[in-house]
């Protein structure tokens, strides 16, 4: 029935993505047992829905979207969604930018522990978009598909996430100096 099934099997498409799905699920849930459950449920759902998968869509984006929706309907996900997330306010953002000199932007990034900590402290919705972009290397249009938001929102959110991460790093390094 579907053209997707004939061009590549679910197994061929999904198997190589298991490490990525798991790692992303862990970042969403922050718990190993829950990450495995999330991926397991994602696989079951994706298997059942595979007939409706369109061969011209990005399989990775498609299955990450299922993972995300699975997380959002989980207990942790529902709790997390109660946290208010301020959507992109461009005016707010540029104030922070104006006060910094260009040299301020070149912070020392060789301190991996500081980066790990900053990423942990980043607001979950900002971290999520950054992981999809920088780690999973999805294109903006595919991230838009995963998050079910317009591509313009993806663009501003990524930019906002980077500035927030940058500010966290700066304040951390400032504290430790």
């Amino acid at each position, binding site marked *: 029935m579907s053209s997707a099934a004939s061009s590549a099997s679910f197994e061929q498409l999904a198997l190589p993505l298991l490490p990525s799905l*798991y*790692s992303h699920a862990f970042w969403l849930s922050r718990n190993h047992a829950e990450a495995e459950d999330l991926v397991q449920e994602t696989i079951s759902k994706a298997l059942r829905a595979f007939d409706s998968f369109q061969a011209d869509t990005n399989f990775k984006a498609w299955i990450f979207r299922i993972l995300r929706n699975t997380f959002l309907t989980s207990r942790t996900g529902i709790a997390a969604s109660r946290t208010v997330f301020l959507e992109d306010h461009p005016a707010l953002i540029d104030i922070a930018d104006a006060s910094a000199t260009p040299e301020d932007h*070149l912070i020392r990034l*060789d301190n991996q522990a500081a980066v790990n900590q900053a990423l942990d402290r980043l607001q979950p919705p900002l971290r999520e978009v*950054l992981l999809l972009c920088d780690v999973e290397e999805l294109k903006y249009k595919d991230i838009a598909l995963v998050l079910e938001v317009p591509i313009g929102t993806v663009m501003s959110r990524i930019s*906002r996430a980077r500035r927030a991460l940058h500010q966290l790093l700066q304040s951390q390094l400032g504290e430790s100096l």
Partner: protein
Amino acid sequence: MTQMTQAMGHLDAEKLSAFIDGELPASESQAIQEHLADCHPCALRVLSATRLKAVTARAAQRFAVPPEALARLTAQIRPQEPKRAARIYSIRSVAWAALAASLLLAASLFVWRQAHQANALSAELLDQHLATLSSGASPEVISTDRHTVKPWFEGKLPFSFNLPDPLPTDTTLKGGNLAFLDGQPAALLLFTIHKHEVSVFLTQRSAGPIATVLPRIRSGFTIRSATTQDLHIFAVSDVNPADLDLLVSDLKDAQSPR
């Protein structure tokens, strides 16, 4: 909010992000590149954002899937087709299937590890290259003369290497530094090709396994690697890939005895 798209305007934060993610149309990307050539503050911001992107990727890869969990998840995907017929299979065929599954799992783990390592290594190469660019500090040994640069490393590294003579057209040796790559001592050689900075890392091949297949491009920078009998050679630059290939192949040839 202003959306600055003309060539002369400073990059706004969103454009900058989209630029380093390779999400802009070619014409816009080109205009930004021209702007960066003349605008030091914007160039610094791009550099900083590129480094942040690389370290974010590395930081996020901390949480790898435990092997047992991967095995369970793999099993969930794999056995779906033969399930109906499985009952009439003999024990022997089940054993064969189990063996095949475990081989497949081992293979997929291996492939994943390789990809993971290659990713980390390419991030490290790019980081070090960008650090060299941004520090503005002079290399430990500053010389365009290979007879000065090569002996400087003697006694500092557990291996030796040769430098090609002559170098490819418009390629200049600027100096060298000691570096560490993937936990191994490396000779860092700095070149320029048509004014583009190039970092070349040489490490000892016997010192341990280094991921073999690297992404050929990362955050807009070209990465090339080559292997000789004794050395791994890695080169990073934003120069035209063909020119980088030429330098790497000359370096490779220089290592084989004539």
